[in-house]
């Protein structure tokens, strides 16, 4: 081996500041610990393992919250990663989502005869991959982290392997996910090839690095091959966030996946997609604004309209959550488009973050109630199943109402402030046609969210059951203590962020 090569390798290794990715490493260690515990612990203590997973993640969350982030604005691992305040924020976000999904998973798996431990290990690994994805600064890391997360999701979606519906959803997600990854990869290849071409101005020695690629793109503002590459990469990301026309997988996969996994897909996977989209459009592809902006604009308008209209006719609540999630992706896209305008950028990025937090609180509340009330077949949860919920379990019904109200954007709740911030940013950026579409979308969404609330609160009239006849309505079990506590926390967060944004709001809106 050439000695200078060895020296180069040693210098490169010195740039690997492992301490900067401690949270991700800890999550990987938690996953391994859980698998090891399954081997070591006697079988009767196995029900402790989910609690251990939740406790370990909670400890990590508190540690991340208390300690100041280190190494901000550096590019460790030779530019593979770029640590920013936004990235740190998203780490906390993914960890919070992973905690909640682990709790929901414990609730859902307690009723089934299935291997349990792998679920929690997979959730930890996927969360670590999403954290790396949100901080990627290099296409190799972006692709590897994205695939690690996506392959974890394939397994999680088909986790209820005794149910053909869960397996079918897993297969559909696999085919669609692999297709989108292949499209994304081909886009990366085109960008790599064109940016490394020594005959073009500003060509890079390391064309997969975001900074080098941006430098090349600003030196060649209308290269055809680069434009094709950008469109392919954005299509691949649009698949992950479920934007029209790449939303076809959403309803089926959301319906078939176990409810905790549906929550994980809706919250974490979508947030990771938006983190990547924010970095790509605002920084890397910014010299190609003329191409990116109309593309995203058409996508956002179509996504808001189609998501809301398709959700109007749904009777299955998981499909409804999926399609309304498509509409929420549309509002978030509107925020991203607003961020292109210099005067609105800061507000828009903060609004997207605030919206994501409000969405996490509200949809986790709804998914927690759904998980608790799910019957034997997890994929079949209809609006009609919620009849008489308010009469039997007023606590659960009110939690559901707060979650759905926040998703619909009803004033005293966090979802309203999130929508308002995004709309104000869009107004500042002068996106009037899109703004009009978004407002129509919000009005449509109130109809189906309130249809659900009505199903839970106002029972349809029925003739009194004759003697000896079984009562028609389902009986609802009360929520366990941990679930009730978390529901209270989430609802309190939604109310608090709606009434008083205060320090947290300032902190979120300041990015």
């Amino acid at each position, binding site marked *: 081996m050439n000695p200078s090569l060895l020296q180069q390798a040693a210098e490169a290794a010195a740039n690997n500041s492992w301490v900067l990715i401690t949270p991700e490493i800890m999550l990987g260690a938690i996953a391994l610990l859980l698998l090891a515990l399954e081997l070591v612990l006697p079988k009767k203590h196995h029900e402790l393992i989910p609690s251990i997973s939740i406790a370990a993640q909670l400890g990590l969350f508190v540690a991340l919250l208390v300690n100041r982030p280190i190494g901000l604005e550096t590019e460790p691992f030779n530019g593979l990663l770029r640590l920013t305040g936004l990235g740190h924020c998203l780490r906390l976000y993914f960890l919070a989502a992973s905690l909640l999904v682990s709790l929901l998973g414990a609730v859902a798996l307690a009723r089934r005869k299935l291997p349990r431990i792998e679920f929690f290990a997979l959730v930890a690994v996927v969360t670590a991959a999403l954290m790396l994805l949100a901080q990627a600064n290099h296409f190799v890391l972006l692709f590897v982290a994205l*695939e690690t997360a996506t392959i974890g999701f*394939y397994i999680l979606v088909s986790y209820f392997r005794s149910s053909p519906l869960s397996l079918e959803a897993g297969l559909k997600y696999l085919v669609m996910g692999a297709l989108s990854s292949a499209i994304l990869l081909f886009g990366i290849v085109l960008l790599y090839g064109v940016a490394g071409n020594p005959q073009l101005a500003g*060509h890079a020695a390391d064309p997969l690095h975001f900074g080098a690629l941006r430098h090349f793109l600003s030196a060649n503002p209308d290269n055809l091959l680069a434009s094709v590459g950008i469109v392919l990469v954005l299509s691949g990301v649009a698949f992950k966030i479920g934007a029209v026309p790449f939303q076809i997988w959403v309803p089926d996969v959301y319906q078939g996946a176990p409810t905790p996994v549906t929550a994980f897909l809706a919250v974490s996977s979508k947030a990771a997609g938006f983190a990547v989209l924010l970095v790509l459009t605002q920084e890397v592809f910014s010299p190609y604004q003329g191409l990116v902006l109309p593309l995203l604009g058409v996508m956002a308008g179509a996504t808001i309209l189609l998501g809301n209209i398709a959700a109007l006719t749904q009777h299955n609540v998981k499909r409804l959550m999926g399609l309304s999630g498509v509409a929420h992706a549309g509002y978030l896209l509107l925020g991203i488009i607003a961020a292109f305008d210099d005067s609105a950028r800061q507000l828009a990025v903060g609004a997207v973050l605030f919206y994501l937090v409000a969405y996490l609180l509200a949809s986790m509340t709804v998914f927690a109630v759904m998980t608790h009330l799910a019957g034997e077949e997890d994929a079949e949860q209809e609006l009609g199943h919620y009849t008489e919920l308010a009469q039997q379990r007023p606590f659960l019904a009110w939690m559901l109402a707060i979650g759905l109200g926040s998703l619909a954007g009803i004033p005293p709740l966090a979802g309203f402030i999130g929508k308002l911030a995004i709309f104000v940013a869009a107004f500042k950026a002068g996106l009037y046609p899109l703004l009009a579409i978004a407002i129509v979308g919000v009005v449509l969404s109130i109809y189906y969210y309130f249809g659900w609330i009505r199903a839970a609160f106002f029972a349809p009239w029925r003739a009194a059951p004759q003697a000896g006849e079984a009562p028609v309505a389902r009986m609802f079990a009360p929520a366990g203590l941990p679930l009730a506590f978390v529901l209270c926390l989430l609802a309190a967060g939604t109310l608090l962020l709606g009434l008083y944004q205060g320090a947290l709001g300032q902190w979120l809106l300041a990015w």
Partner: protein
Amino acid sequence: MTIGLHHYLALSALLFAIGFGGVLLRKNTLVLFMSLELMLIASTLGLVAFSRFNGTPDGNVFVLFILAIAAVEVAVGLAIIVALFRRRGTVMVDELNALKH
């Protein structure tokens, strides 16, 4: 005739198009899966060709990552297909339509 970068790229684009068409048109899940792999292989061919002709070495390294990911994807995918075949007795796409409201 010397074989240049354009020939490799044309082959790569052709493979990608065949794979994409296969995913859209074929009905058998296993064939569909092969088409997905073909799309990944098309990308690796493009990477190696660009890497060789541009003199940027990191494309070759990226290929190794892609191969590893493709292998994992196949392992998970075949596991899901086998489990689904045991439950439903079919791997044809048009018969797998239980997820409707």
